[in-house]
């Protein structure tokens, strides 16, 4: 695909802890094209945050990327130096926003100082020019009175405003790819709606071209992505366009997830469940990592890991049923 932006191939990440080696990611693959909005969805421990951090090579110790390739515009990010990453990729080509804005923003610097710093790291412009750009981008994210806001410290802002500041910082250098790691999980639902609305309008205006949106909230992801990558216990279960995932999920785990999400409009009923528990990744289940909880499991599922196979168009499933 000529407008392929990101190509993650067989990414493997391990955490070497005292209790054992955690196989956090095992052969994760997915692609993002220019202008595409991809949602990465899964429960705790599925590795979605690790996958995102791997793209920026920010996996914290004791973790290490032990295999795979990550191509950004044709260049394997795992082969370039950290210095190159810092100068050319992080913040400029690929930006990231995090879950808790109050923790991701530096409490001792004003909002203005942080944005200007981000801008000046990647563009050779003067401080006043950077400030002008900062004001412009604060306006774009819908914050009132940007010149005044530049002087505010993060603790003086509400959660929603802090998140907008983070988005502003992330957009300030026109990244090709924006990675959003659970950006609204710590926000109230009405503020979340505001932020989602903002992200959608930024996408429509073209300020955000490609986006990787990470969340555990299926309902949320349906509103914001074209394509969804479903992850389970460090592996990719299914990659499909949004409509298909909801109407015709293929992977048994995806099916289970669809049933489990409570619908506010359906009234009192029992909740859907998936039997069993999320496995520990220190000694993960053999074969397909979901086989112990899968009601369609066959003998082969316990023995052999299913690979991602194309189902139709750009949809893929990793399951022996297909």
């Amino acid at each position, binding site marked *: 695909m000529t407008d392929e932006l990101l190509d993650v191939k067989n990414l493997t990440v391990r955490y*070497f*802890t*005292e*209790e*054992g080696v955690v196989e956090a990611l095992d052969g994760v693959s997915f692609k993002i094209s220019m202008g595409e909005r991809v949602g990465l969805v899964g429960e705790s421990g599925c590795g979605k945050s690790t996958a995102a951090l791997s793209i920026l090579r920010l996996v914290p*110790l*004791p973790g290490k990327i032990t295999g795979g390739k990550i191509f950004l515009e044709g260049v394997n990010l795992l082969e370039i130096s950290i210095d190159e990453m810092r100068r050319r990729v992080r913040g400029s080509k690929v930006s990231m926003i995090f879950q808790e804005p109050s923790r991701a923003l530096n409490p001792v610097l004003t909002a203005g100082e942080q944005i200007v710093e981000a801008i000046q790291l990647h563009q050779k412009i003067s401080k006043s020019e950077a400030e002008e750009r900062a004001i412009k981008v604060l306006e774009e994210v819908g914050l009132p009175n940007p010149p005044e806001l530049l002087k505010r410290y993060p603790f003086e802002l509400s959660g929603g405003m802090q998140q907008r500041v983070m988005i502003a910082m992330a957009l300030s250098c026109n990244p090709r790819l924006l990675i959003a790691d659970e950006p609204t999980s710590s926000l109230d639902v009405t503020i979340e709606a505001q932020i989602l609305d903002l992200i959608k309008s930024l996408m429509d205006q073209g300020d955000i071209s490609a986006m990787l949106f990470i969340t555990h909230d299926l309902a949320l992801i349906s509103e914001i992505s074209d394509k969804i990558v479903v992850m389970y216990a460090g592996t990719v279960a299914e990659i499909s366009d949004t409509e298909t995932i909801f109407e015709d999920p293929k992977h048994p785990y995806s099916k289970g997830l669809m049933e489990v999400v409570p619908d506010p409009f359906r009234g009192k009923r029992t909740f859907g469940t998936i039997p069993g528990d999320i496995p*520990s990744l*220190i000694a993960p289940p053999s074969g397909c990592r979901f086989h112990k909880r899968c009601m369609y499991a066959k003998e082969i599922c316990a023995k052999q890991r299913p690979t991602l196979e194309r189902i139709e168009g750009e949809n893929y499933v990793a399951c022996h049923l297909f």
Partner: protein
Amino acid sequence: MRLSLLNVAGPFAVLIGRMRRDKMALFGATVVTGLFFIAIFAPVLAPYDPLLIDLNYRLAPPEQGHPFGFDWVGRDVLSRVIYGGRLALIAALASVSIGVFIGTPLGLFSGYIGGKLDTVIMRATDSLLSFPYLLLVILIVALLGPSFENAILAIGIWSIPNYIRLVRASTLSIKEREFIDAAKATGESFLSIIFRHVFPGCASVLLVQSTIYLGRAIEMSAALSFLGLGAQPPTPEWGAMVGLGRIYLQVSPHVVIFPCIAIFIAIMGFNALGDALRDALDPRLRGLFRG
């Protein structure tokens, strides 16, 4: 196997495992165990009576059967050092116990109840802590009269405000945690919460700090005896041996050197063990594996 957090009540295996890798920990554990062993089996280990005077051998240097030589009245230095170990350990354990048994409840109540009680206790604590420690213990012994027991008392009194502060800090952070709320909701009484729920949380800090204080207690009791304010002659206490033997340093250094080395090793041992325990119990260092 699941991921496990370490807590004092949890498996010792992880603790020992961690410490096995640490050289300092090994050293500390060896010294401390050695000291306990010597203290308990002193009568068996010491080749001679530590009080036995033989004026024929005054200040005689080390020789066959007397590896540490003789002191100024002909007593076997090795035996005196061995019995000195017993006294050092007794002094340490007794004084630290005073601190633990009086300081801990005060710290618990001060931290948990807060308010005026806390203010009063903390003012008193701060006042005592503002004295240079040596001055404080010297003052107390001077008031009570020099003796081994009074030295222990003085060191114990020194340690009380330290324990109060320590336990209070732990208490303050534990009392905010949700399981304390849960305990109240269950109907636990005030005392029950403090001793069943708050106190166990202080246990690891107490353990670490007490180990270190044991070392400090040995240091202080040696210092007091050195000054003549602690154990009185003929008691074979290390500090006293150094203090009284000082004048013979040029002529017969062995009467001073061996007790000095003993003091040094003992204190180092407790410090090393305390540090190792602290590292092993520190939740933040978990998972950092150079692998």
